[in-house]
């Protein structure tokens, strides 16, 4: 019973990882690709590790620490990549309407801005 639950969770995680790869192929421009790739693959990794924790309960604490590190590093690195792509003016898709990063960089920096 526990084995079935764990395998279902791992399978769901792998579906998310597959959709991350599909998203990287099908999205129109770089910023969309960065977003899909990171979100879906981070969730897929977390689900695979959780399913593994259900299948092998002795490894639970180690896997939870791993999930913590993945959650800490994956979004930060994709954030740094996306900001770098914006800084060298990688082209956006034609259907883009609003660019908030451009607006916030053109306005002069105010004192109490967070």
């Amino acid at each position, binding site marked *: 019973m526990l084995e079935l639950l764990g395998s279902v969770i791992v399978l769901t995680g792998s579906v998310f990882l597959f959709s991350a790869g599909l998203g990287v192929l099908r999205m129109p421009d770089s910023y969309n690709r960065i977003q899909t790739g990171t979100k879906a693959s981070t969730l897929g990794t977390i689900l695979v590790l959780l399913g593994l924790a259900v299948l092998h309960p002795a490894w639970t604490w180690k896997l939870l620490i791993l999930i913590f590190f993945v959650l*800490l*590093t994956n979004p*930060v690195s994709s*954030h*740094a990549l996306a900001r770098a792509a914006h800084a060298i003016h990688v082209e956006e898709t034609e259907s883009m309407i609003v660019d908030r990063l451009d607006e916030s960089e053109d306005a002069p920096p105010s004192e109490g801005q967070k």
Partner: protein
Amino acid sequence: MIKRVVVLLTLVLLALVFSDLVLNYIESPVLSPLGHYYATNGPAELGAANLVTSVIVTYRGLDTLGEVTVLFISAAGVGLLLGRREGNAAAAQPRKPASEIVQSAAQLLMPMVFLFGVYVFVNGHLTPGGGFQGGAIIASGILLLLLAQPYAVVSRRLIGITESLSGFSYVVVGVLGVILAGGFLDNRIMGLGQFGSLFSAGAIPIIYILIGFKVGSELGSVLDRFRAGDQ
């Protein structure tokens, strides 16, 4: 047009050869005779629990020395190609400061990354890992520092001294093997200790610590070269 046809033809022919390899591949049911020797005599002779480490550092130690040399030459090549800049100095281009997310994450992560790197190469003879992997982890910690503080100054003299001293000490340990034990890079110059504990396997931890420092500082200097002044 001709170019595409030739490329496609090459790849199809290669795919035919590869598929022949895959279809006639039979998994070996037992260990090869050389692997058998390493498995039966390795732990008793050398005292290291990680058999891959005992192969890399002792049985094939000369290959590892060559690999450290190749890494040194490639770092020197990168330093030569991206070295001094003709014309305007690197300070002419202002570097974009890092965002708050990256700075906070770097403050939280950098000590953990360095600690993990040191753990990996100190325990190279007990768990999977070793000098090269630990050195790469330390270099990624240095990359995190360079990303979070674009104006951080990495002292090239310190990196150069660390790298040269580690490489030199590696060769000194090898020569000590000739003087005190069986041959060049023999790890029995120190006692084999208790199997599976941290201070075991003779000189293997010492060699891996030296390799870890060398690889870490080398890759860190390569990353620093790629950063200094863009155009």
